[in-house]
């Protein structure tokens, strides 16, 4: 009956299902705010009032396997995708029955069981990750569609540009769902952009954009249906903008003075739920009594979830370090890395190749071994084969799907890797130069490193970020020469590897790719093209196992990366002066092989820590402090550090050589304490 009188109306079953979801969202959102207003719960909450119709109208179009990424104002998206109510409310209360055992909280609900893959607290950061989920769907041919929700405020962030461009370029099965609620936190749409709409920007990127009334389920559903079918049939992404006025301030308890009071009053007088309820009755789809029953059921469902969550426990103390890494033994100072034995390579054929060629070989072996491994990065496909030539030949051999050249879009590169890894793949993104990791730091530090913990172990990010540190190769200056490992060792959840030899570069890279956690491998360009002996075939050098390069009794030199080569040379020079130095190459900083360092410094009583990175605030400071704490009273001299001067890396050779350490400088410092 409704078909004739309301030609654009949805079928009754769909309409009622959408209404039910809207009511369940409202019941959840309102109950949370009730508990906050009563002081029973205390956390920062971002209500979704006014936006209920958007995910509710899309939900009937999504399969169980389809995936959603959302934001801190995303409880409506999460309820609509099917996360159990008790897990949502439990997480908001910080209880063990929550989606993340209480470790993620209201802003970081993730429930891969229901396809809620990431809820991010960083505006705009979900889009790059959604691309990765969609890329995995495309590469694996799962037919899965990804819907990424964000606000109009997020459309002014760089990640929007990078992600939309990459998704259009690669025809990714993703729907960019802009929930335009008229305010980006406290700033109106008009004060944020000259664009008339967000969807209007789509044309510039070569994808379809459409704006619909985000309070009208009929309109949302029909537009989303086209977008989802487009994605599912391999025809690429859509930018769908749903306009739905925010019915309250930015967060629970925040003032509303920044909002246009007339507009707000008008929107509140005709909220989407009441409007749809009236339409359903008007169309004859339901009676008031039918809809009352839906409301009563939703309230009961929420009440049951609140009771379950109130009764649940807070996580126990041992949960603190669980989910930082797959294996808690890898957490610095908490566990001792499971020291897998060094591989026995004595019967292997040995070839003389450069570190660069050893890396190419490792990537080739990884691509051959595991179909879930793929590479992505700027210029990495043939004929370029990467700016360092580390990936030369690989796209020709393994195809451009698996050795994937990207636009210059570091956030999109890391996001795509993260998303694909959440779907079980093992991506190896390349960030050309270490300095460039700073432009995608949000994806690395706030997402790759934290998603396992924030999801209470429900998701993990087994990506291997390869990056070159180009320090001390001559005239590469301040923005292409840095060693930034301390940024990453200071970020719980990501492992950091720094090889100094070609054989290690190969074995550590293969171990990193096989590792269940995100790993950053910092490859030293200074050692890149030096021929050395490298065993043939597949082998892994375990992460968290230092190498003792030279034994000695007088002083311990601890180093990593290209500085370890200088330390070894310093040891030879010291030997000529009668000082026997023990040289430890850490190889990985996280996990850290503290016991090898302790054992050596205990023996020698003296220690110099040498690294290419700026000395002030560097990794050496951490290690020196720890060794001093552990060995106080057994040291014969203060632990010394040597690293880069506290300056940007200078261009001109006369100053560059002053900035960086070398074997002579290490020798001088060691002689001061051991001479």
């Amino acid at each position, binding site marked *: 009956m409704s078909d004739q009188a309301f030609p654009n109306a949805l079928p009754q079953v769909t309409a009622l299902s959408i209404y039910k979801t809207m009511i369940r969202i409202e019941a959840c959102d309102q109950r949370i705010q009730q508990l906050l*207003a009563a*002081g029973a719960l205390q956390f920062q909450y971002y209500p979704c009032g006014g936006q209920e119709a958007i995910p509710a109208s899309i939900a009937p179009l999504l399969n169980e396997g389809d995936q959603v990424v959302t934001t801190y104002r995303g409880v409506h998206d999460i309820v609509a995708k099917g996360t159990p109510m008790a897990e949502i409310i439990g997480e908001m209360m910080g209880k063990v029955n929550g989606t993340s055992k209480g470790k993620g909280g209201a802003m970081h609900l993730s429930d891969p069981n229901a396809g809620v893959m990431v809820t991010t607290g960083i505006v705009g950061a979900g889009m790059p990750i959604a691309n990765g989920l969609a890329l995995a769907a495309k590469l694996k041919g799962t037919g899965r569609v990804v819907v990424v929700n964000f606000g109009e405020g997020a459309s002014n962030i760089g990640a929007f540009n990078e992600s939309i461009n990459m998704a259009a370029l690669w025809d990714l099965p993703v729907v960019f769902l802009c929930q335009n609620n008229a305010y980006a936190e406290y700033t109106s749409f008009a004060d944020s952009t000259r664009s008339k709409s967000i969807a209007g920007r789509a044309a510039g990127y070569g994808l379809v954009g459409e704006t619909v009334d985000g309070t009208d389920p009929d309109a949302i559903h029909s537009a989303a249906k086209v977008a989802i079918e487009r994605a599912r049939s391999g025809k690429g992404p859509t930018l769908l903008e749903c306009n739905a006025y925010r019915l309250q301030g930015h967060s629970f308890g925040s003032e509303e003075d920044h909002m246009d009071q007339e507009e707000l009053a008008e929107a509140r007088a005709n909220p989407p739920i009441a409007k749809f309820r009236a339409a359903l009755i008007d169309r004859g789809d339901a009676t008031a009594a039918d809809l009352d029953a839906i409301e009563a059921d939703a309230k009961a469902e929420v009440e049951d979830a609140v009771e379950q969550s109130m009764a649940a426990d807070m996580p126990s103390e041992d949960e603190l370090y669980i989910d930082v890494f797959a294996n808690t033994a890898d957490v610095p100072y908490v566990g001792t890395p499971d020291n897998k034995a060094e591989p026995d390579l004595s019967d292997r054929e040995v070839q003389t190749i450069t570190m660069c060629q050893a890396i190419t070989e490792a990537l080739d072996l990884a691509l051959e071994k595991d179909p879930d491994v793929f590479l992505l990065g700027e210029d990495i496909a043939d004929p370029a084969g990467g700016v360092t030539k580390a990936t030369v030949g690989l796209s020709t051999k393994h195809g451009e799907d698996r050795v994937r050249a990207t636009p210059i879009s570091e956030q999109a590169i890391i996001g795509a890797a993260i998303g694909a890894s959440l779907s079980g793949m093992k991506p190896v993104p390349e960030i050309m130069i270490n300095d460039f990791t700073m432009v995608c730091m949000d994806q690395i530090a706030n997402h790759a490193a934290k998603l396992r913990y924030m999801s209470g172990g429900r998701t993990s990010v087994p990506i291997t970020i390869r990056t070159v540190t180009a320090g001390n190769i001559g005239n590469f200056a301040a923005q292409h020469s840095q060693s930034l490992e301390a940024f990453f060792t200071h970020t719980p959840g990501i492992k950091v590897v720094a090889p100094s030899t070609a054989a290690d570069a190969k074995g550590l890279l293969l171990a990193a790719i096989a590792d269940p956690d995100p790993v950053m491998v910092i490859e030293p360009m200074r050692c890149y093209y030096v021929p050395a002996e490298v065993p043939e075939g597949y082998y892994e050098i375990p992460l968290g196992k230092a190498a003792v390069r030279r034994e000695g009794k007088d002083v311990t030199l601890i180093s990593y990366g290209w500085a370890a080569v200088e330390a070894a040379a310093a040891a030879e020079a010291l030997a000529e002066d009668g000082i026997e130095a023990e040289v430890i190459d850490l190889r990985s900083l996280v996990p850290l092989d503290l016991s090898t360092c302790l054992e050596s410094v205990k023996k020698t009583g003296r220690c110099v820590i040498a690294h290419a990175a700026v000395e002030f605030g560097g990794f050496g400071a951490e290690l020196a402090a720890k060794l001093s704490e552990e060995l106080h009273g057994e040291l014969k001299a203060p632990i010394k550090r040597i690293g880069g001067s506290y300056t940007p890396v200078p261009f001109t050779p006369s100053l560059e050589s002053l900035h960086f350490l070398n074997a002579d400088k290490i020798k001088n410092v060691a002689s001061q304490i051991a001479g």
Partner: protein
Amino acid sequence: MAKIMLKLPKLAVSMQEGTLREWFVESGTQVTLGQPIYALETEKTTVEVESPFEGTFTCIGEVGQTYKVGDPIAEIVQ
């Protein structure tokens, strides 16, 4: 009959305490959902706190007093 304790709500991420400035309802009266029940001054602003429940209202806090987030302020009996 259910007794619900109303505690001082956390209205901003940095908020630790607030001062009760005015009661809009008296003890013993019926309050409805969303009815302003008291004025709360925080470090940032003064807001009218609305009743999250309906029922018979009892004031506990005293006007002019500063309370910590989570301290009991009022009670509603349903």
